[in-house]
């Protein structure tokens, strides 16, 4: 038996919506980052994520078979149809929060993409193998910065610990596993998110120790984004900005 079309579609939306929403968030720093090099780095990371989004959402549209393009999926859906995790839709807040979110996401993302690059479905495998190269670079960079700022000045240490305390409860959703994930894993399409957690925690512990930061011990996790059950209020505001052109001028073409 093959995997259900709906499971595959949901899987692709989860992948593409994560990179789309995080790419959009990073884009908010363009022209505002604390240093020119950081501005360029975030814009380049956002660009990689947007490129990956185009691959995932184009394939999602093909799999769905209703003629929806990458643009239709990105610009013409509303909050309840998005399947990104809550972590990526959180506001950028200060630079510490932006980098901490990136660090948590990058290390999950890298593990997920490595698993996906072995996918029984070569369409997913090809996109993942391409993305792994880009995300390896993102993960290297975010880990270096977490260490530099965590083990930096009193002020930078405090801000990074604040960011970790606020964002860590959003990391649990990355590894949430539901019936869709089990269907995909059984067919060798995608790794079970829960199976990635030990490697994630191990990597986190190494970097956080070097960064002199303490991982929160409470395992509470905010959930509801990747199932579409309940997003935070922040996603609606983000979409209002990202989709304003299609909302103001429906059907407008470049």
């Amino acid at each position, binding site marked *: 038996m093959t995997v259900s079309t709906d499971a595959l579609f949901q899987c692709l939306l989860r992948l593409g919506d994560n990179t789309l929403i995080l790419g959009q968030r990073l884009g908010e720093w363009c022209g505002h980052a604390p240093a020119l*090099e*950081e501005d*360029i*780095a975030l*814009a*380049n*990371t*956002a*660009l*990689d*994520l*947007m*490129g*990956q989004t*185009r*691959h995932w959402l184009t394939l999602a549209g093909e799999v769905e078979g209703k003629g929806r393009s990458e643009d239709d999926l990105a610009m013409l859906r509303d909050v309840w149809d998005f399947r990104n995790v809550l972590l990526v839709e959180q506001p950028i807040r200060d630079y510490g929060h932006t980098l901490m979110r990136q660090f948590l996401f990058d290390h999950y993302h890298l593990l997920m993409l490595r698993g996906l690059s072995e996918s029984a479905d*070569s369409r997913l*495998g*090809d*996109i993942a*193998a*391409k*993305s*792994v*190269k*880009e995300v390896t*670079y993102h993960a*290297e*960079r975010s880990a270096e910065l977490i260490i530099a700022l965590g083990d930096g000045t009193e002020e930078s240490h405090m801000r990074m610990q604040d960011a970790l305390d606020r964002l860590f409860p959003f990391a649990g959703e990355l590894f949430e596993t539901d019936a869709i994930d089990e269907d995909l894993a059984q067919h060798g399409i995608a790794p079970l998110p829960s199976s990635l957690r030990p490697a994630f925690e191990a990597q986190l512990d190494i970097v956080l120790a070097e960064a002199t930061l303490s991982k929160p011990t409470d395992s509470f996790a905010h959930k509801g984004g990747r199932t579409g059950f309940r997003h935070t209020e922040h996603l609606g505001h983000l979409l209002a900005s990202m989709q304003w052109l299609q909302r103001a001028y429906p059907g407008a073409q470049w």
Partner: protein
Amino acid sequence: MVKTPGATAANTNDQRPDTATIWAWLDDVPDPEIPVISVVDLGIVRDVAWGDDQRLQVTLTPTYSGCPATAVIALDVETALRQRGISAIDLHTQLAPAWTTDWLSDKGRARLVEYGIAPPNPKGGVPDDCPRCHSARVSRISQFGSTPCKAQWRCDDCLEPFDYFKCI
């Protein structure tokens, strides 16, 4: 495809340039971001072949997923081929195997150095030397540079900043 009235399949075939000629034409198409190297030097043209239907099949691969030059490159390749009289062209995008800097040609690497960009170093993420004064004393300014494929470095001897073509 426009067919000349009265042309037979045989002499249509005779008019088709061979693929080696087409590769040479494409080697004249500059990369839009780094115009000293061609799209062939960069390794993004993966295949050129005549299809059974007399249409030219050109396969391109993106460098980085989100590289804005990808669309421009596809347009430039098509324009260059049309200028040479080939109008029946199908462009394909291929993701696998994923693009790697190993595909950069030796000619391309030499041109990069002349242009002031340190070529990718397969031994690791560090340029061999400064492309201007060739000092090996170099340090990184930023992991990202002016395009997705480059990082910013600085020479500790001549003190000039330079681009390093990231090795992926």
